[in-house]
């Protein structure tokens, strides 16, 4: 019963913290675009917060490089449970075009568990919204462990 209360409370108010682990800014401005008048995801109760301690969702962009790997883990630990990770862009999913560079660790899922992937280079705001909606659907159905 307690679990269903948590699910219910998360459905309409996912707060997101954005972590750039070394991306090119393409996905980052598309995420910010999703918060501006044309797409306006704030109508779904999603908003960007200034610190991981307030966040439910970590929106990670860019391939993880060796300097940000430890910092991503720190940010992940600072986020209170229940927490979800959305990997935005091909780089965050696999390393993308930067695969093979000496400083790149790879996709985000090498370090932290990922609940939704958004593919695209850069990912369009529509597909980012779609991924968040899919995540909310997963929470509703109880497909993700809370």
């Amino acid at each position, binding site marked *: 019963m307690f679990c269903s209360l948590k699910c219910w409370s998360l459905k309409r108010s996912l707060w997101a913290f954005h972590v*750039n682990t070394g991306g*090119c*800014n393409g996905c*980052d*401005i598309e995420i910010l675009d999703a918060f*501006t008048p044309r797409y306006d995801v704030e109508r779904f109760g999603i908003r960007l917060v*200034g*610190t991981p301690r307030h966040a439910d969702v970590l929106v990670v962009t860019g391939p993880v490089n060796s300097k*940000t790997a430890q910092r991503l883990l720190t940010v992940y630990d600072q986020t209170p449970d229940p927490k979800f990770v959305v990997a935005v862009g091909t780089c965050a999913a696999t390393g993308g075009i930067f695969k093979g*560079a000496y400083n790149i660790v790879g996709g985000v899922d090498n370090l932290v568990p990922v609940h939704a992937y958004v593919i695209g280079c850069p990912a369009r705001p529509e597909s980012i919204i779609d991924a968040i909606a899919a995540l909310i659907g997963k929470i509703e159905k109880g497909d993700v462990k809370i």
Partner: protein
Amino acid sequence: MTFNLYFGPFHPALKEPINFTFEVEGEQIVNVKPALGYNHRGLEKLLETKTWLQSGFVAEHICGICSGSHNGCCYQGVERVFGIEPPKRGLYIRTLVWELERIHSHLLWLGVMLHEAGFDTLFMYTWRDRELTLDLFEEMSGRRVVYSMNTVGGVRRDVTDSFLQKLKKYCDYLEERTKFYKKLVLEDSTILARFQNVGVLSKNDAISLSAVGPVARASGAKRDVRYEEPYAVYDESPYQIVLGEEGDALAKTIVRIDEMKVSLDILRWIADNIPSGDYRIKFSPMTKAPENEAISRIEAPRGELFYYFKSEGGTTPSRVKVRTPTFANVLPVVKMLEGQYIADIPVIVASIDPCIACCERITIIDKGKEGVKMITADQLRSYAKKWYEEKYKVERGRK
């Protein structure tokens, strides 16, 4: 007694991670130490493993905001290694991409700058106008942000007449909007109070610290590759250098708004005068380059972008060097921050249009008490608002 105030590296807005350590005495900044490298991906080494034709696709991922500039500058360098001259129509379309990108980047910057000053309504306005630019990019190239328009020896896609008609309509609409923004910035007393005489960079400092782009031009230094060494079709276009005088955050804002107007003029001129004919010449992907070296410079939205290519006669470059405008502007921003107030940090850092740097996680370490205090950018913004309210209350009381 001085405190150390850590600034960065993570943040929710849009920019890449950077870390600043501020030594502060009371409210004033005494010393600034920037730390870079959070976004290091090893791109120069990666470019050495790609063929000449592939290099531009990697180069445009150096920065997603000025991707067209990186892409175009990279291929301009490759063309100089091979000694290829692209056809005229290709150069016109390339210039069109660069100028459209300058408008999109400056609108984005204007929104972020006003957001840092606490003016969120205008942030939404500028980003709404920016969407129209992205629509044009999507119609032209199929993608909104990273458009891969250029290639060795021209551009990858042609533009249609109906697109050029749309471009003209867009220019007319945006001309009105830039007038509105300029009027607002110059007349709104809140914006003036936050921007005037904040983060001043003198002309001498701008030149001696090698500031580039609008940061240097706002201080009155004539630094613009389009002016110094016209490339593509800039020598024929109605381009005019835009200069400021004071070098403060307000001058940087006005210079960028005026530059958008110049870009609109160039776009209109391109729409009227674009020649017909081929837009690219054929280039085989596995062509071997002659032994040669070349440099390529263009004026990206943030300032001078520099590429160096060295070829030893293979299908890949043997050395690539990239110098981006924000890197050149890190030292000037350190100079601008010295002696300023903590409340002005967001505005000053945003005023150079950093492709890095934003102020998300800030740690204040009180050396005397060995205590650690963390504040976020939102807290810093509200702190800045309160600080200014107090300041003006006191001044009003005096009057």
